[in-house]
């Protein structure tokens, strides 16, 4: 764990769960796994609060526990999982685009609560959807649970590890902590639930207004049913599956940018075909024959088999090798080299960062070194066709910022500089790591700045909230226009201006956070996929 990561984790935990949880979480991230009493002692927090904090962290899958010998339970923080909290809005948005509103709310509830039973999710989501609907309309439980089943089918949500059912006849004391078991077979199996009923509105006055007899309601809802049908079966959002989706989308849009819409559609089809058959971490997809691809193309896509073959050859010939040819049987077998795709995306990110930071001429040198692998200084100056002095300057600047690295090859064992080759190279992996580290740092900075801005204007924000609340309550009671106006004027013009500036700044900072995270995602997946290969 680097300092920047720890700092970012601390900010995220603090923002999501408050300071106590942050203290415990960061302590665990720093020290590795620890038993309860040690955590309480080292952080100087009362045992009660440590327990609460650990419960919260475990609930949100941010901490795991393990029973060690002598029955000591040790808690371990999942740092990379904490960092993924940054991506929550993106997960939610993705489900919205795929499964519209019910899907969006299902994933949102799962992320907000860490884990939930299916019946709880369905109930919450249906209630929330009902609240946004017009009066008199309600959301059916069945519809929400259908969406849930679809999400489980496509692996976007999965079951949490289960507590094995133990028979009570077992003598001896119960273990200090339950051992959770993952049942691979049932991971995505939706329990058969007969969820009948409709979402309720929170306000009882609404119910009255809807004019339905009150006695009828409770019968429909699962509220007073004592045994919950899917008790103990918890669900969580499958973040790996989301990452797989993000990666696929990045690849598809990269192909679209490089070639054209049609080729991207072909690649999308290939990826969709292998979505379930290929595990999310695999470097290659399963080989697909061109006939299979042709059959699976979306219906509205009118391209002939011949054109498809041409496209596939073109894609396979492209130096970026988004698609590789693995054989000739079945009209040509094609695979998608996911690792290579990620590598080219990461390299492109590096190139564009160099370009934006140091200018296009530096980017030229950078690409040159990337392409030729190892170059001496003199060669760089010559090949880049940039005056020697400037080229040196740029090269050294990138060297000092660690985008380019230097390899010494001594001719004699004494390493004398005059008898040594100095070769400049780009080590993509280490440059990606460096950039990732910077991204963490900049997100931490962004969050801190945002918190500072909000803190500076706290009083003003509170005031505006209060005024808004008053206005809302007066509107509800049917106040006159003039009265509302009067209250609105409680916030002066300069104050209003200040509020607007604040809002703009916060929006910008938030948007930057989201977009830096996109870079983080790319770099992280590239590094992860490279590490798997080594």
């Amino acid at each position, binding site marked *: 764990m680097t300092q920047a990561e720890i700092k970012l984790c601390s900010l995220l935990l603090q923002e999501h769960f*408050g300071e106590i949880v942050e203290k415990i979480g960061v302590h665990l991230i720093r020290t590795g796994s620890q038993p309860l*009493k040690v955590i309480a*002692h080292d952080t100087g927090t009362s045992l*009660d609060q440590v*327990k609460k904090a650990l419960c919260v962290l475990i609930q949100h899958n941010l901490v795991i526990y393990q029973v060690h010998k002598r029955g000591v339970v040790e808690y371990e923080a999942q740092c990379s999982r904490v960092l993924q909290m940054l991506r929550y809005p993106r997960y939610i*948005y993705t489900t919205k685009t795929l499964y519209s509103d019910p899907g969006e709310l299902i994933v949102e509830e799962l*992320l907000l609560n860490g884990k939930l039973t299916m019946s709880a999710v369905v109930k919450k989501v249906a209630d929330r959807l009902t609240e946004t609907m017009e009066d008199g309309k309600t959301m059916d439980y069945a519809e929400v649970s259908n969406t849930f089943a679809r999400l489980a089918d496509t692996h976007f949500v999965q079951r949490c590890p289960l507590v094995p059912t133990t028979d009570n006849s077992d003598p001896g004391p119960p273990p200090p902590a339950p051992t959770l078991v993952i049942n691979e077979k049932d991971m995505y199996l939706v329990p058969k639930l007969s969820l009948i009923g409709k979402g309720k509105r929170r306000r009882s006055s609404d119910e009255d207004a809807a004019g339905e007899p009150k006695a009828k309601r409770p019968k429909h809802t699962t509220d007073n049913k004592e045994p919950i049908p899917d008790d103990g079966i918890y669900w969580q959002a499958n973040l790996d599956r989301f990452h797989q989706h993000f990666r696929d989308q990045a690849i598809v849009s990269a192909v679209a940018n490089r070639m054209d819409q049609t080729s991207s559609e072909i690649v999308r089809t290939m990826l969709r075909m292998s979505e379930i058959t290929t595990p999310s971490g695999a470097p290659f997809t399963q080989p697909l024959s061109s006939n299979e691809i042709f059959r699976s193309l979306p219906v509205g896509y009118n391209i002939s088999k011949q054109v498809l073959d041409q496209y596939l050859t073109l894609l396979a010939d492209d130096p970026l090798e988004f698609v590789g040819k693995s054989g000739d049987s079945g009209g040509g077998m094609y695979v998608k080299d996911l690792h290579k795709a990620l590598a080219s995306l990461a390299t492109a990110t590096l190139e564009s960062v160099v370009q934006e930071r140091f200018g296009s001429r530096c980017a030229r040198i950078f690409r040159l070194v990337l392409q030729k692998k190892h170059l001496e200084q003199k060669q760089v100056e010559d090949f880049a066709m940039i005056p020697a002095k400037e080229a040196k300057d740029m090269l050294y600047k990138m060297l000092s910022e660690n985008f380019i690295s230097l390899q010494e090859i001594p001719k004699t064992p004494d390493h*004398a500089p005059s008898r040594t080759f100095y070769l400049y190279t780009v080590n993509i992996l280490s440059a990606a790591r460096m950039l990732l580290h910077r991204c963490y740092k900049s997100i931490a900075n962004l969050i801190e700045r945002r918190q500072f801005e909000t803190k500076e204007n706290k009083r003003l924000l509170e005031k505006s909230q209060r005024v808004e609340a008053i206005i809302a309550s007066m509107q509800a009671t049917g106040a006159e226009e003039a009265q509302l106006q009067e209250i609105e004027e409680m916030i002066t013009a300069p104050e209003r201006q200040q509020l607007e500036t604040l809002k703009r700044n916060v*929006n910008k900072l938030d948007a930057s956070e989201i977009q830096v995270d996109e870079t983080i995602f790319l770099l992280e997946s590239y590094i992860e996929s490279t590490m798997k290969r080594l």
Partner: protein
Amino acid sequence: MAGNKGRGRAAFTFNVEAVGFSRGEKLPDVVLKPPPPFPDTDYKPAPLKTGESEDYVLALKQELRETMKRMPYFIETPEENQDIERYSKRYMKVYKEEWIPDWRRLPRELMPRKKCKKAGPNSKQAKDRGKGTPLINPSDVLKKIEELEKQGDGEKSDEENEEKEGSKDKSKEGDDADDEDGAAEQEDYDEEEQEEENDYINSYFEDGDDFGADSDDNMDEATY
């Protein structure tokens, strides 16, 4: 640097011209201060992406942040009492729904032990202590002494043993004190057993009340 030739350029073992300095040019000064916190950037950052989906994600993010604060998982730090009760505070309060964790999934030690608070935890604990400790301790001590005598390690081991007992008692006391101030706790599960299991840790990581004394003892031990 190899050799002190003391004639300017010659201090370098390599050809300075290779790094881009022509003959007779002055080398830049050595930098002795840290780089500025906000260095000038040569290039202005590219504008952020904007669009409908970006706006939506942004709104989602901000909404999520607010919702998170209202979830029961957000543990607030207990505020110190303010002298003046602010009227506005009453409106600021958010009512959170209660969250009952599924204890089947969590280690037992995380359960808050609250239930017997009303039933007079002190009296119960006193009873427990009365029952538990004298029964266990003497027999243990005897056994230990016997074992040690068999080893025939004379006075030294005896002393050590005493010392051990002493520190053990101390840690036990510390325990009880801890239990008392954490009297909000203690529930159905077996206290004695827990203590036995965690004995090792308790005596090593007690919250430092009698740490000073213990360490003194250790010092003494180390001297002979």
